[in-house]
């Protein structure tokens, strides 16, 4: 039936190249998720009259997105040309779409967060006549940020999925759910840390939902991927990180559900959720890079796919032809 694809390569050298991204990009993945989730929480606080939650969420969103952006620019080959990201709008490029999302989201978050800061420093910011404008536009800015919060959290999954890196590409159908859940539980965790228990109710719920989403999405992804391409997720550094992230997610989730009310436990579970999210991002990031370095992860899944298509009678779409 499907001939067992025995494995040959060119002196063991990689077939595809890993993305030249350092840990900065993994940090951005994590912070992007946190920012997205926090903006949603901020909007929630804004609509349901939870001022502390709103303020903390907005500030954490701004902090997360600015540190993330700096990390992104630092990783560029030519940082001084970072503005070229907005040179075109290419719908086929997740990084282009993502850059526009990031810009839009950042403006909204910045405006709303500055308003918060202004209040915190009880209007001592040198705004002058702008203050009134700021107060007026603060609400809609919160909406605008929240509007782009979801896409900010999800686009990074498409960014990784839309590459030739075996493990990322193989999981491109479930990766968005993993990243969205990870973003949710991370921002919720952060909210549980920063916001007193009484206003953090929704955060706790959101966190629980995120945990459930993450556990399911991760399981489904690993199951539906080509077994060979999934190996890096369970091996080496990446495997360890993902295993720990799973434990922390479970622990954080349990903490939130059972004793979310007690401040100490909330903070602890918030921390574990944050850590879990970070570990998921770093784990998936590392697994992808290592899958690109070993030719086997490119060749064997492709040979299996080709053989399966041929077995199914589709014989005209192979790059190797006899005539």
């Amino acid at each position, binding site marked *: 039936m499907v001939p067992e694809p025995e494995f040959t390569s060119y002196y063991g050298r990689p077939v595809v190249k890993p993305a030249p991204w350092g840990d900065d990009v993994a940090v951005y993945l994590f912070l992007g998720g946190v920012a997205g989730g926090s903006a949603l929480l901020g909007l929630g606080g804004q609509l349901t009259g939870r001022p502390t939650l709103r303020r903390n969420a907005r500030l954490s969103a701004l902090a997360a997105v600015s540190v993330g952006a700096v990390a992104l620019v630092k990783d560029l080959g030519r940082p001084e*040309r970072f*503005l*070229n990201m*907005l*040179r*075109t*709008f*290419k*719908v*086929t490029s997740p990084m*282009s779409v993502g850059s526009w999302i990031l810009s839009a989201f950042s403006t909204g978050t910045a405006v709303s967060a500055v308003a918060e800061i202004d209040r915190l420093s009880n209007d001592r910011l040198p705004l002058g006549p702008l203050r009134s404008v700021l107060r007026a536009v603060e609400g809609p800015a919160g909406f605008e940020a929240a509007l782009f919060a979801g896409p900010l959290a999800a686009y990074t999954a498409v960014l990784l999925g839309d590459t030739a890196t075996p493990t990322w590409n193989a999981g491109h159908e479930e990766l968005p759910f993993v990243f969205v859940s990870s973003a949710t539980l991370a921002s919720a965790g952060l909210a549980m840390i920063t916001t007193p228990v009484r206003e953090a109710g929704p955060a706790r719920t959101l966190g629980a939902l995120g945990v459930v989403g993450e556990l399911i999405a991760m399981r489904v992804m690993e199951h539906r991927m080509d077994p060979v391409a999934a190996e890096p997720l369970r091996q080496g550094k990446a495997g360890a990180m993902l295993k720990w992230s799973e434990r922390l997610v479970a622990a954080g989730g349990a903490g939130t559900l059972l004793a979310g009310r007690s401040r100490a436990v909330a903070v602890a579970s918030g921390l574990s959720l944050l850590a879990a999210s970070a570990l998921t991002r770093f784990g998936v990031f590392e697994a992808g890079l290592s899958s690109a370095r070993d030719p086997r992860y490119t060749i064997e899944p492709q040979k299996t796919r080709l053989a399966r298509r041929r077995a199914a009678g589709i014989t005209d779409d192979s790059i190797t032809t006899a005539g």
Partner: protein
Amino acid sequence: MLRNMAPRSFLQWPVVRQVRTGDLLGRGPSVTSPRTKAIGPRTATADRVVQSVCPYCAVGCGQRVYVKDEKVVQIEGDPDSPISRGRLCPKGSASEQLVNSPGRQTRVLYRAPRSTEWEHLDLATAVDMIADRFIETRRRTWQQEDEAGRLVRRTMGIASLGGATLDNEENYLIKKLFTAAGAVQTENQARI
């Protein structure tokens, strides 16, 4: 790109050009930079082209040497040559780097007896010193006749080992000068 956007019209911003040219996916003309539009090979902008022959092996592939501002900018195959038809081997293709190689020497160096370092010497002095030594050694090791009394009129004190990358004209002058001076031990790579 954005920072030099201001002076040019807003219309040049690729996002806008994507819409204007219909290249919505931003793949082709909409994203080309002015520098890309003006692109051209340095062979077209060279001051002159000279036909030459590759200095490496004896196949004698034709080469075209492009010069700009009195500096060799490109050496590639000569399509007119019936021998090589514009093609070259790796060494032939590296001829431009042979000429402009960073390791190439362009200054005369001199090492005095027992010294451990090179020192610089200007060209005219060096050639003059060599001429003196040539004459002195020639006189010291001159043999008018061999032991059997037969005319030999030569010196065995001077020898030369020429490379086979010398021109015919250069070989001719070397052979002519050395033979007239009686230095018979001129040799070259043809024998190694």
